[in-house]
């Protein structure tokens, strides 16, 4: 039951680590790489708290066998803010819009929003709703999260115009 060396492009930097057979990307991020933003809410693909971007697209990292994505690019919430700590538009909109309560779903929600807005700078409310339909939040009732993502889209567009 030998471990495998896996290398990824992680938040823009190379990362190399060992993985036991059958290890999920989520477990590798948390247990081997110390990246704790992605959460283990269910380990069944049902809650979205572990959402990260795999080659730019949101996936439930608990469902990805990490050995099978050798060489892929992975982005987590730790890689969203600028290197100097400046928040990006989605993070700022969640902060200002009181779109977090317990915070456990937040990383997944933000990663879905990052991917949505990268491909669609002016999403409709329905498009936002569909994008987060795999992400469970038990605290907010979702309205503030939807509003924050729409607000983030506006902020990003304004920056682009400037």
């Amino acid at each position, binding site marked *: 039951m030998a471990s495998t060396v896996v290398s990824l492009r992680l938040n823009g930097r190379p990362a190399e680590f060992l993985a036991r*057979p059958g290890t999920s990307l989520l477990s590798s991020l948390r247990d081997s790489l110390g990246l704790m933003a992605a959460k283990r809410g269910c380990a069944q693909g049902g809650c979205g708290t572990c959402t990260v971007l795999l080659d730019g697209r949101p996936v*439930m990292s608990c*469902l*990805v*066998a990490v050995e*099978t994505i050798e060489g892929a690019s992975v982005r987590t919430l730790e890689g969203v803010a600028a290197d100097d700590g400046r928040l990006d538009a989605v993070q700022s909109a969640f902060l200002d819009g009181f779109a977090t309560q317990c915070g456990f779903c937040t990383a997944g929600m933000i990663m879905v929003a990052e991917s949505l807005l990268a491909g669609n700078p002016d999403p409709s409310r329905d498009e936002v709703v569909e994008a987060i*339909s795999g992400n469970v939040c038990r605290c907010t009732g979702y309205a503030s999260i939807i509003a924050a993502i729409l607000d983030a889209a506006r902020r990003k567009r304004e920056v682009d115009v400037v």
Partner: protein
Amino acid sequence: MITAVRIPGSLASAAEYAAAGGWIMAGGTVVMAQVNNGSVDASELISLRAAGLSGIRVADDMVHIGATTTFREVAELEFLADAVRTIASPSIRNLATVGGNLFVPQPYGDFAVCLLALDATVHIAGSGENRAAKVGEPLARGEIVTGVSFARPAAGTWFYRKAMRRKLNSAAIVAVAAVVHTEGGVVSSARIALGGVAPRPVRAVSAERVLVGRWLDAAALDEAGAAARADIEPFDDAYASAWYRTRVLPVHLRRAVLR
């Protein structure tokens, strides 16, 4: 406990591993969930990620979809986009594959219901001859689904509706997929598949019989829907009872066609 994950670079190599008893995994959405809770009854996983089975080809109205094509990619086939949007969530659709969907028990596995309605051919490779099968046929040990193919339905003949407890990201109460041809308003042929109402996707042959030769209107569809109750083996689960599924089947069959 998983002791090895194989990532074969070819179909032949994958088939060899499969013949040795490993579990085949494509997107991982079903298998990894079981790995995570310790319920996989095998020690080897065989990932098809590198086996070259991904992609969509359309030629002369024949559609071929590779087994490891994800639903995000399938949604690019315009007539199937609405059906695909009813399957799980976008984050799951970035991983989940067409091949995997064939093996998901009901009330999941909506795409298998579509393929049954489309009279799709399932392409299977293994240690012996490659073969073509119908949707729902079991695989022998060591066999691997390489893709599915079907004729693209003519404009206006494809119908799909999935009734769920929630508007998005939920299992089927009743899924209806159908290819219905009419001539002058009269049904000339109908092929209807149902999900959520039996352990496997089922053909609603009784409903098809009712419809052929009839005006395609609400009355005919209601009659067909009632007849379809003979074709199902409904079950209770966490989403709905067998009674409820049976009760609303005609409503959703009608709404699938009349929208």
